[in-house]
């Protein structure tokens, strides 16, 4: 008996989709089993069934060889199954210790034994090397630390089977590495782990086996050692996927964006962008790499007119556009894929068609005489972009909320790109988007470049920076550390600069390092 968990022929029908269609899944003792698939392929549903949040319509679950009926989370907890959710299940005003013991409190009579709770959390965090202050309030912690609390929560309940639902989606690259170390050490101590993701690199980095779901069906299970990136991408998408964008060398033309000594302050008067100079030319992609929170968002919003520039100048072509209104900047030939599509890019409760005319909603041909809306034109526009950008399902009247992340992003991309802007900003253009859609969006970015747009790309994904950029800039602590031709940059060098290292130091270090090797 080497299987700690077996799920057989799990089927779950939701009102509109068959989320799981006779899915089999098993987990060995002490392994990391990656569960991958595009958004909406049924990964989370399957694990929510295992944790008792959903009930399956049919199928059986065996835990440690025994058939079980998990009808609520309590049962899963008692079976030593723990789950770390993508959207954390933490009560923000409470402390770390309080969150960890919630539901299984240590008590003295009816009273909470806070002292012992803190002690136990400390013991636990020492045992697994997950350092945390048990007295800290959740809302004072970084996302990475909050996730740590989630893992400790499961371990506190004695979890031997740990499910992590897209744990890396919210983490910075550094935090992802820390998480992987934690997972490997948990595995060594005997924990069996299910790791849900749609990022293939992560699968290859930590898992022992991998199962692929596509549209609610299991496509297959393989030993990670016997598969590769290309193979997994094809299993996920169901066709051949180009992981690297094919592109010609850039043919840069005239300067389109020029930024001179730009300073942006946040609401508390803190400088987030500190004297940035930047130039992007027509027909090239300039990628800005950097750990999130180093001023990229503020830089982008200042260019778009969404935040005030405290100092410096921004030029679009010959024209100075500093602190113009967002609409006026757009009309001057600017388009943007914002980093948070829910907050800036879409009105989730509006239809796909209405989302596709945001920003153009007061213009011909969608409006006549400045007041009469022309539904025919709105829908014609929608049909065209839906077709061209392969937005699925292809229904213009559906609210944007009901689409998957990838297709929501295609709405934004389609709307912005079809305007053929002179300057195009793409901020985290493929965040939370699945492999097939990433491929598509990347191709579209390059197509825009080749049509002569100046593209400013901001991304926390190094792969994305590398595969799209012609030049790469690194942003650290509100400043542009350096701008280099993409060909001269290695991942290692970029990582060094992103963490605040100086280019001179890197080169000196490289030289001495090479000397030693000799």
């Amino acid at each position: 008996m080497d299987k700690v968990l077996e799920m057989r022929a799990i089927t779950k029908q939701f009102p509109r989709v068959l989320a799981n269609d006779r899915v089999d899944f098993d987990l060995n003792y002490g392994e990391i089993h990656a569960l991958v698939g595009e958004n909406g392929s049924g990964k989370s549903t399957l694990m929510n069934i295992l944790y008792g949040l959903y009930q399956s319509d049919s199928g059986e679950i065996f835990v440690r060889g025994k058939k079980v009926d998990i009808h609520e989370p309590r049962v899963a907890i008692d079976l030593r199954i723990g789950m770390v959710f993508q959207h954390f299940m933490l009560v923000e005003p409470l402390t770390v210790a309080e969150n960890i013991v919630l539901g299984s409190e240590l008590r003295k009579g009816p009273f909470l034994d806070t002292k012992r709770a803190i002690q136990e959390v400390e013991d636990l965090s020492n045992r697994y090397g997950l350092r945390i202050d048990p007295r800290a309030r959740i809302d004072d912690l970084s996302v990475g630390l909050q996730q740590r609390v989630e893992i400790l929560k499961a371990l506190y309940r004695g979890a031997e089977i740990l499910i992590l639902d897209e744990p890396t989606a919210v983490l910075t690259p550094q935090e992802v590495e820390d998480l992987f170390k934690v997972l490997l050490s948990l595995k060594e101590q005997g924990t069996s782990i299910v790791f849900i993701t749609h990022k293939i690199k992560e699968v290859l980095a930590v898992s022992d086996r991998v199962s692929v779901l596509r549209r609610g069906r299991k496509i297959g299970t393989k030993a990670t050692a016997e598969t590769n990136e290309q193979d997994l991408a094809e299993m996920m998408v169901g066709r051949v996927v180009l992981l690297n964008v094919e592109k010609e060398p850039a043919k840069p033309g005239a300067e389109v964006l020029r930024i001179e000594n730009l300073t942006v302050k946040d609401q508390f008067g803190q400088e987030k962008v500190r004297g940035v100079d930047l130039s992007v030319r027509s027909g090239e992609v300039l990628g800005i790499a950097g750990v999130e929170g180093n001023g990229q968002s503020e830089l982008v919003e200042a260019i778009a007119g969404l935040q005030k520039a405290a100092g410096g100048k921004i030029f679009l072509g010959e024209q100075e556009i500093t602190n113009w209104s967002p609409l006026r900047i757009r009309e001057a030939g600017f388009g943007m894929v914002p980093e948070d599509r829910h907050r800036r890019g879409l009105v989730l409760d509006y239809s796909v068609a209405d989302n596709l005319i945001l920003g153009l909603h007061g213009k011909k041909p969608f409006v006549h005489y400045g007041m009469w809306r022309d539904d025919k034109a709105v829908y014609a526009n929608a049909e065209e972009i839906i077709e061209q950008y392969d937005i699925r399902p292809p229904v213009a009247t559906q609210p944007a909320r009901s689409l998957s992340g990838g297709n929501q992003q295609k709405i934004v991309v389609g709307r912005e790109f079809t305007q053929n802007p002179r300057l195009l900003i793409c901020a985290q253009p493929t965040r939370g988007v699945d492999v097939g859609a990433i491929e598509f969006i990347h191709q579209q970015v390059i197509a825009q470049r080749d049509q002569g747009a100046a593209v400013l790309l901001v991304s926390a994904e190094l792969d994305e920076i590398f595969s799209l950029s012609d030049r790469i800039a690194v942003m650290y602590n509100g400043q542009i550390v350096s701008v280099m031709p993409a060909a001269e940059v290695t991942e290692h060098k970029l990582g060094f600069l992103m963490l605040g290292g100086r280019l001179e130091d890197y080169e000196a270090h490289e030289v001495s390092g090479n000397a030693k090797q000799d």
Partner: protein
Amino acid sequence: MGDILALLFNTAVFAAALRMATPLIFAALGGIFSERSGVVNIALEGMMLIGSFTAMFVSHHTGMPWMGVLGAVLAGLIVGLLHAVFCIRYRANQVVVGTAINIFAGGLTVFLLRYYFGAAGTSPSVATVSDITIPIISQIPWIGRIIGRQNPLVYLAILAVVAAHIVIYKTSWGLRLRAVGEHPRAADTVGVNVYRMRYLAVALSGALAGLGGTYLSIAHLSRFSEGMTAGRGFIALAAVIFGKWTPFGALGACLFFGYADALQMRLQDVGVPTQFMNMLPYVLTMVALAGFIGKSVGPKAAGEPYIKG
């Protein structure tokens, strides 16, 4: 000038402040329990009114005022459960349900009053919970004249504040209560029964509001009169917000509002209109909500029905 100072620090005014605050304190504690569990309770007013009526009614029939207190608590609890069923089970809009209960309570008490006592306006006089003197404390100068001789319900209100603080912050039930009102799904995923917590909290809320109503009809006065809560349920709600959803914070707010109430009679002589003092609680609540005295942020999930799965 000296007259006004003497008035402001008059022990009789302080003692009266404590009495005026008592019904507010009970109701505010009720509001805290309900909102902490994630259910908005603007029905405090109606629950108090029904408590007031029931206390009078039971006291009238049994001649035992403490039976009246018990009756009011039970009546409040039942109305609380009614609120809970609509808000939790049927996921109705909590503000609408609360408003409906307030209107219902106003109509029901008037109807019952006329039905049983025929008289319009007020009930006959009934037996009341009478004041007690605390032996040693009453001898202390100044303080003794404020807290040395009071109604037992006044003392009970202060004890209830301490008890509520302990329950909310020191027990596992309180931890679960706070979690359920902030992030019910998080509580659910660690095996806490969200619905049960909310039913208990809202029922308790009703019981406390009923207790607050008791004080008005069989301690402060000895009769029930139509609409006698006169907005105190809403002032209690204001105290909940002003006190940042904590028992001691709400106590402070209630004492302050009670003080303003006690002062208003006397200030009229100096020429300050009653209406000015009456609007004070609401003005202060708006100030608190606008964030002038530190931001007052309530439980995040308050007002949202929880849907499992």
